[in-house]
């Protein structure tokens, strides 16, 4: 189960940070892009399972979904391509140059001291 392994990695990362800074993690803020290969619902379910019985059992996972943004050489501008097709919705030029949308990032932690 792929999302379970990702959830475990998120918990590891959060636990490590909490230990460094001291305090109890109340929430984990995650940025998730469609090109990360991770699905939000599956991740949320896996996270619920993974956090049980750990020091982060009380930590909520807050997911911010970010859109795919790519550079269109035709328009010389950033566009939101019609994922999964990476081409400009305005002029149709292929846009393989992705600016954002690959994120799988723990942005911040809410820590209670």
């Amino acid at each position, binding site marked *: *189960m*792929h999302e379970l*392994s*990702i959830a475990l*990695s*998120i918990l590891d*990362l959060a636990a490590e*940070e909490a230990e460094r*800074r001291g*305090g109890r993690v*109340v929430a984990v*803020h*995650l940025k998730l892009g469609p*090109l*990360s*290969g*991770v699905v939000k619902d599956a991740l949320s379910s896996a996270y619920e399972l993974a956090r049980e019985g750990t020091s982060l059992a009380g930590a909520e996972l807050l997911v911010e979904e970010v859109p795919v943004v790519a550079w269109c050489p035709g328009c010389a501008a950033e566009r939101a391509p019609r*994922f*999964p*097709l*990476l*081409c400009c919705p305005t002029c149709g030029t*292929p846009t*393989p140059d992705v600016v954002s949308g690959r994120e*799988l*990032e*723990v*942005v*911040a*932690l*809410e*820590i*209670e*001291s």
Partner: protein
Amino acid sequence: MSETRLVQVRQHVLKQNDVAARALRARFHEAGVYVVSLVSSPGAGKTTLLGQALASLRARYRVAALVGDLATDNDARRLARSEAPVKQIITGTVCHLEAAMVAAALDGWDLAGLDFLFIENVGNLVCPASYDLGEAAKIVLLSVTEGEDKPLKYPAIFLKSKLLVLSKIDLLPYVPFDIAAAEDNARRIHPEIDVVKLSCLTGAGLEQWLGWIEERRHELQALRGALVT
């Protein structure tokens, strides 16, 4: 009275793998070994193609392979017939190879004594897309017994791969596979992806496949040479 504060972390979840992969990439670069990984659905023909590559390239190059599976060392045994060094990575329940697994498997091998290293991933078009193994190129295989819309269904891996190998083309007369549509779909997801069509059974396209790998290695060697001088 407890107080809640927001601390910025800004860390990629798979950072551990990325760090390990970068270290591998640096090792490969220093050793001068060209590394590719093969991904596909189970049964698309990775092992057969790899066996053919090892056997053909062995005459002129020093080649080796790592193969990942959940269980059995059957693939390593098949590939060992080529007499090239082959190691099996048994992942247990993990559905993809990770950089740390590759690094551990390379223990005891002298990378400087290799020209090519092939890494065969677990049969899976989903998870391998998220795990960098330090390779110079990911190669995705799609056989003609699958659907031609696979690239649209699994965009991440097709976007990350430099080469698409359309395999088992000897079966084209017997299956409804629209090979032009498959190629078209792959280019819709990744316009610059290279495509090779082949059959390990008849030998069609094998020269083109080997040529692609050799050319890419040659390019990398030239780049290394340019950086050194």
